[in-house]
């Protein structure tokens, strides 16, 4: 039987905010079924996945450590998504940020100085922006689709990092492991809570949440982003430049992703490795949508997604479940969220048997 989607005249505004919670409930329900099929006690598995990681102070610290890059990137991406600029390549921009910021750490490895960390941060941001500038240029100059360009550049960035740590930047005293030298103290983000790995980056992420909120709610550029995303013709009529908004969105997303990458290598990791992110740049896309493209929502969604990373590790350790469970949970959450969103805006009707000729 064919189904037809019919647009609802006035989608419920309350449901727009309830849909992430419904999606979460459906994800948990599906998780129970999934665990049952795998022969694992569902209650125990859910406990290991969602509760156990938060039973210690260290666990809470880890939650913030994982949430930091997600929130940082997702706040910036959500502003671009509001404008209809689909930057899918934050993962690559994150890697470039790590390379550029980390490069500074390696360059000044033998020097101590208070200025090294700020310089790394600036270079990290610049690196992410430069990587995002490529799709921005191609989109505004040749109308090339930024989804494809930014996504493909992610793999280029990953291979570039791999080349660096296998080749020129490999630690000569590192027993031939593909890793750079470990950054010195001046090039490392200070920990802010003893007994955890919680670092200064978490504070930066909170600042970005506030800044994102101000940008959306109070500034003209935030308003422009919204107008261009909703009605480009009205934006041009108002005198807003679509081109400028595309550049702004991509550079903002790229800069935030670059900062996140730098924070990862200067914080929890402390050096450059072939893999520096478990896909934060991609997960941040889910975070942005689960958070309803609003900075405050993104903060909560980021914490939830961070928990799914911790839960996956915890389930692996205590229940011997594969780490892929994390990806499954993240995927289900996005799937159910999108499904809920469709049902908020449309109702489903069986399509009538006789084809109606469009007028």
């Amino acid at each position: 039987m064919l189904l037809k989607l019919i647009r609802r005249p006035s989608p419920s505004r309350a449901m727009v905010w309830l849909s992430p919670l419904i999606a979460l409930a459906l994800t948990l329900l599906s998780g129970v079924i999934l665990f049952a099929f795998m022969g694992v006690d569902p209650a125990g598995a859910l406990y290991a996945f969602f509760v156990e990681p938060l039973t210690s102070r260290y666990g809470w610290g880890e939650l913030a450590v994982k949430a930091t890059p997600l929130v940082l990137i997702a706040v910036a991406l959500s502003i671009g998504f509001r404008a209809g600029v689909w930057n899918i390549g934050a993962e690559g921009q994150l890697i470039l940020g790590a390379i550029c910021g980390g490069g500074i750490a390696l360059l000044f490895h033998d020097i101590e100085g208070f200025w090294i960390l700020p310089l790394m941060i600036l270079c990290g941001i610049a690196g992410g922006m430069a990587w995002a500038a490529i799709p921005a240029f191609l989109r505004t100059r040749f109308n090339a689709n930024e989804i494809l360009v930014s996504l493909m550049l992610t793999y280029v960035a990953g291979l570039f990092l791999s080349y660096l740590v296998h080749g020129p930047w490999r630690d000569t005293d590192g027993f031939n492991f593909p890793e750079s030298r470990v950054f010195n103290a001046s090039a490392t983000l200070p920990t802010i809570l003893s007994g955890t790995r919680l670092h200064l980056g978490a504070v930066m992420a909170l600042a970005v949440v506030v800044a994102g909120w101000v940008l959306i709610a109070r500034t003209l550029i935030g308003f422009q982003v919204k107008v261009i995303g909703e009605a480009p013709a009205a934006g041009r009529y108002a005198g807003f430049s679509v081109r400028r908004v595309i550049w702004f969105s991509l550079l903002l997303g790229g800069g935030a992703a670059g900062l996140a990458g730098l924070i990862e290598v200067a914080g929890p990791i402390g050096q450059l490795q072939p893999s520096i992110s478990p896909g934060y740049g991609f997960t941040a896309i889910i975070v942005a949508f689960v958070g309803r493209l609003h900075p405050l929502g993104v903060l909560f969604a980021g914490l939830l997604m961070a928990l799914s990373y911790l839960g996956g590790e915890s389930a692996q350790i205590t229940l011997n479940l594969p780490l892929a469970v994390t990806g499954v949970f993240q995927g289900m959450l996005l799937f159910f969220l999108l499904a809920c969103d469709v049902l908020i805006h449309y109702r489903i009707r069986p399509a009538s048997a006789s084809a109606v000729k469009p007028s």
Partner: protein
Amino acid sequence: MSASPEPATAPLLELRGMTRSFPGVLANDQVDLSIAPGEIHALLGENGAGKSTLVKMIYGILKPDAGEILWKGEVTEIPSPAFARDLGIAMVFQHFSLFDSLTVFENIILGMDAGEDSARLRRDIAEISARYGLPLDPDRHVYTLSVGERQRIEIIRCLLLKPALLVMDEPTSVLTPQEVDQLFETLRQLADEGMSILYISHKLAEIKALCSHATILRGGRVVDSVAVDQETPATLAAKMMGAALAAEPEPGERVPGETRLALENLTLDAADEFGIPLRNISLQVRGGEILGIAGVAGNGQDELLKAISGETRATPGAVRIDGNDCGHLGPNDRRMLGLATIPEERLGHGAVPGIDLTGNGLLTAFRRLKLATRGFIHWGASGRFADSVVERFRVKASGNRAPADSLSGGNLQKFIVGREICQDPELLVVSQPTWGVDAGAARTIHDALRALAARGTAVLVISQDLDELMRISHRIAAICAGSVSATYRVGDVSAEQIGLLMAGTAELDGVEAVHAA
């Protein structure tokens, strides 16, 4: 209903108690209607009165919630347009479904059942087009045809089916006055031969000229069913709108002012393959006058408005506001020179659908009224500005937080017009100011434009509604295929003469063109 005389013959089509609701609206409420063979029956009503819903039920596109359709005296259910066509109901839509890149003949045969004999079809087309005064070359490509010619294809398509009932949905909104006369002759001939015609319109003069009976809808209900020759346009209008509107004032005397807007040889290539290039447009608008530009849709109106507003840039010297060359300036720099513009499309161009009235007020006023400074928005002042527009133009909205798409078309148009007028422009350019709005809102908008001109503002009105332009303008010109004709004093030219200009005549013989008021 009241003074409806019984038709002599049994009705061809009879509707009883037709009811159809949509979420939140009762579009048709117990509608009765009856059409005799050979009758030209008007379905009269304002936008949103429920005319389209009713004909969609007749043509099998919508299913009625209640009510019955009697075809030749028998209760009939019409489940699909194909079924309606088999019964003998044909419909000419307001929007044509034609392939531009195919020829007339190819378009017609595509709509036929497979296995149609193409030689015979050709003969039939030639015969119909000769017999009913619908001249059409079957081998022309559709994209080379005028809108009036395209409509002929649709009519011939319908006539090939030899229908008993022809439904025409607002057929004249895209035609010049000459083309309207031609169409009416065809329709009268068809009616004389026994075909019934259901003619949907809100133009009273046309209904007086063409139809014998009229069913008048208001708010989804039949308010009256009348013999047209017993009515005057004023009584029809009163029934259609529910309350008689006072006559609009004459344009009146004006204080000739300085030239505010001067276009000089404005020439612009089309932005894309669907656009219209502008060719050598020269005109001036002075303070205190209203210049009307008539034209059939799709002749470059949108392109002209965008070239003036700054959404597209022009060559140096082509656009001057108060003598300042501003071809290279963007919309906001031009607004600072005193310009305000109102595009034709309300949702998506003049206003952002999902953004509230405060934001939509800010949209064009942020710079001129300093609602945003140093990159930050003053929401308090913006809200007060939106409130003042809502109050001054009596916009029906739940407040300044109401999203633009929650307003009715007329109220949103009042808000957009009000937003521009409340910025005290010295030059206002407006396209289709009253398209699709109810008579009350149209009146409010016309009065506002007159008041603005009386205060010394130069006003340029681009419209497809010739009656509107004749009522409010001091001078008038027409746009056709991207060129603008000479301009004339409104009192010096007739509707037919403007029809010639709309069809592409650059200048009229024997009438003095005036370049300024």
